[in-house]
């Protein structure tokens, strides 16, 4: 029983990480039809930003208490900034050439991890988390690491914030309408392009937060982390339906749980394989994605 609980909570923690990456990816694809291969790079930027700040390079930030919150906020801010720069400088000039947009993000996705490993080395660096979050707590007889709970909590907060933003604000309305039918929104005289930058900023912020908290989850940061998470995020996006945040949340939890349980009860590594095969199977059975949005 205790194993099942531990696996379930760990699976949900992993799912939370996937959700943080996939929610932005899903919104970006839903609104702009850009499959953002640089999203993993944004996550890595967030992770390294937080690590840099938490290691004492940023005055006021540190590895415990309020200092750690500041470090995570700093990493998220850097990631958001990177996403905005990416959109304005690289994606915007290519609006008329959708395939080149994907290619440009591929280039960024290759270059950024390489730059990170050039600056801080290709090896994993230990992530200085606060002492309070490195412990465990008891639940139904299982000892569960606290950081899993932090991840799930953060993901739930992001989910709630995104739903509020999309459902209750004018900008959110434009984004939702743009996901449904971009041409119609433009025809109504609304500049969708501003929403593009906004969606990139939101997606970048979520991914960078995922990177910062992923440092807690894995206990270390390395340049390839974002890229390896990206493929699972694709699975989540396809399962949850392009442009649907709630769908991404459900799919992320499902994928995280399947992966953890399969890795434990069958052979290690088989869970990862199962998820990847699941992506292929899903796309082949329902070519338009589960909610019929995939072009």
């Amino acid at each position, binding site marked *: 029983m205790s194993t099942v609980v531990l696996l379930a909570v760990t699976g949900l923690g992993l799912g939370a990480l996937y959700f943080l990456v996939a929610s932005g990816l899903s919104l970006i694809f839903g609104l702009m039809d850009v499959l953002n291969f640089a999203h993993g790079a944004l996550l890595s930027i967030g992770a390294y930003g937080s690590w840099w700040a938490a290691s004492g390079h940023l005055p006021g930030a540190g590895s415990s208490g309020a200092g750690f919150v500041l470090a995570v906020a700093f990493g998220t801010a850097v990631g958001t900034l990177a996403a905005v720069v990416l959109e304005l400088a690289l994606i915007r000039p290519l609006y008329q050439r959708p395939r080149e947009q994907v290619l440009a993000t591929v280039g960024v996705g290759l270059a950024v991890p390489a730059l990170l490993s*050039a600056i801080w080395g290709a090896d994993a660096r230990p992530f200085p988390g606060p002492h309070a979050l490195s412990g465990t707590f008891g639940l139904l007889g299982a000892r569960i690491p606290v950081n899993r709970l932090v991840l799930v909590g953060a993901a739930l907060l992001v989910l709630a914030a995104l739903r509020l933003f999309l459902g209750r604000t004018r900008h959110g309305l434009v984004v939702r309408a743009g996901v449904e039918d971009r041409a119609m929104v433009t025809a109504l005289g609304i500049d969708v392009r501003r929403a593009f930058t906004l969606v990139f900023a939101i997606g970048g912020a979520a991914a960078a937060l995922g990177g910062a908290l992923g440092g807690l989850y894995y206990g270390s940061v390395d340049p390839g982390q974002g890229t390896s998470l990206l493929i699972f995020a694709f699975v989540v996006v396809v399962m949850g339906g392009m442009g649907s945040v709630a769908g991404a949340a459900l799919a992320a939890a499902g994928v995280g749980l399947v992966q953890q349980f399969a890795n434990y009860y069958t052979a290690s*590594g088989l869970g990862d394989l199962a998820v990847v095969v699941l992506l292929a199977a899903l796309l082949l059975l329902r*070519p338009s994605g589960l909610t019929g949005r995939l072009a």
Partner: protein
Amino acid sequence: MSTATPVREAAPDTAAASPGARGWTRWWPAVALVALIAVPYSAMPLPGLLDGPIGSAGSLQLLALCLVFGALATGYDLLLGRTGLLSFGHALYFAAGSYATNTFMIEAGLPFVPSVVLGLLSGTALAALLGSVSLRVSGIAFSMVTLAFAQAGSLLVERDPGGVTGGEEGRAIPADKLPSFLAGIDNTANLYWIALAYLVLTLVVVQWAVRSPTGRVWEGIKENERRVEVLGLRPYGFKLVAFVVAGALAAAGGVVHLLLTGGATPQTTTSDFTLSLLVMVVLGGSGSRWGPLIGGVAYTWADQRLGDLAGSGTVAGLPSVLRVPLSQPLFLLGTLFVVAVYVLPGGVARLPQRLRAARAGARRSKRGEAGTAGAQVDG
């Protein structure tokens, strides 16, 4: 089929240049081929480009790698540039050829030639199987399905089931199974010629396939798939043929790479490897005859030489702002790629044509006839 007429068709603008130059330009691939065949006999140093003289083992190894990746990119362009299929899983078939051949030799104990044949067949069969499944969807979904299959292959290789793949270490080729003319550093020239033969094979197959009636349909699918359907053709079968031909060529490349590097390495299974193929094709010019080859050769050379440069004393002495990015070839190549996507639509291969168009446009606007030159540059 005679090959003479299509060549003339393919290069209308070179043919128009001057009748004297035409005879020469038509034969330059043959001249280049003879030069490439003769490379191992040459001791000419190329300072800056290569470390030793061209004919030395190290230089030949690098040149052979360049040729293999040039050929691989040319094969990949059959999907990307000729049929318009964006596959993110091409590395899988390359790795399949490499790993299958090696496994047949090590695990089944088969001799060299049957292993190579079986390795090629396995790679092709895998491409046929996974292609027939992936092509049921199109657009970005196709890209993701191919990515998923390739990732599954990569995970499988890394997991090392039954100790067959050697996990992260890869697996060295069994030296006792190799024919004597391929083993050892003294025989690098033979490996180089094999790589060259693979390149020629790829170029011939791609040229022939593109000029065939099937190739015309591929072009149609790339331009407008719906219209091909309206004409009464089923794009699925044609796309599958392209996928299998490209997969078979990649598997052959995997075998050559296995011989050249002396083992199967897991780096060839990763999605990064496919992405670097994409970079090669786009840098060189997708959809052109020589573009992917140029891109592949240039990328591989730059990747190797930048790696050497990063480890050299010249770079270590630079201030850190310059030294840090220079130490990572992938950073430079990724950046270069992004730049190329912007300023070089159509890649290096389209550059002379664009320059000509720009010059013609400038001349015309001088005469006060500014017209459609801008549109030509974009096309």
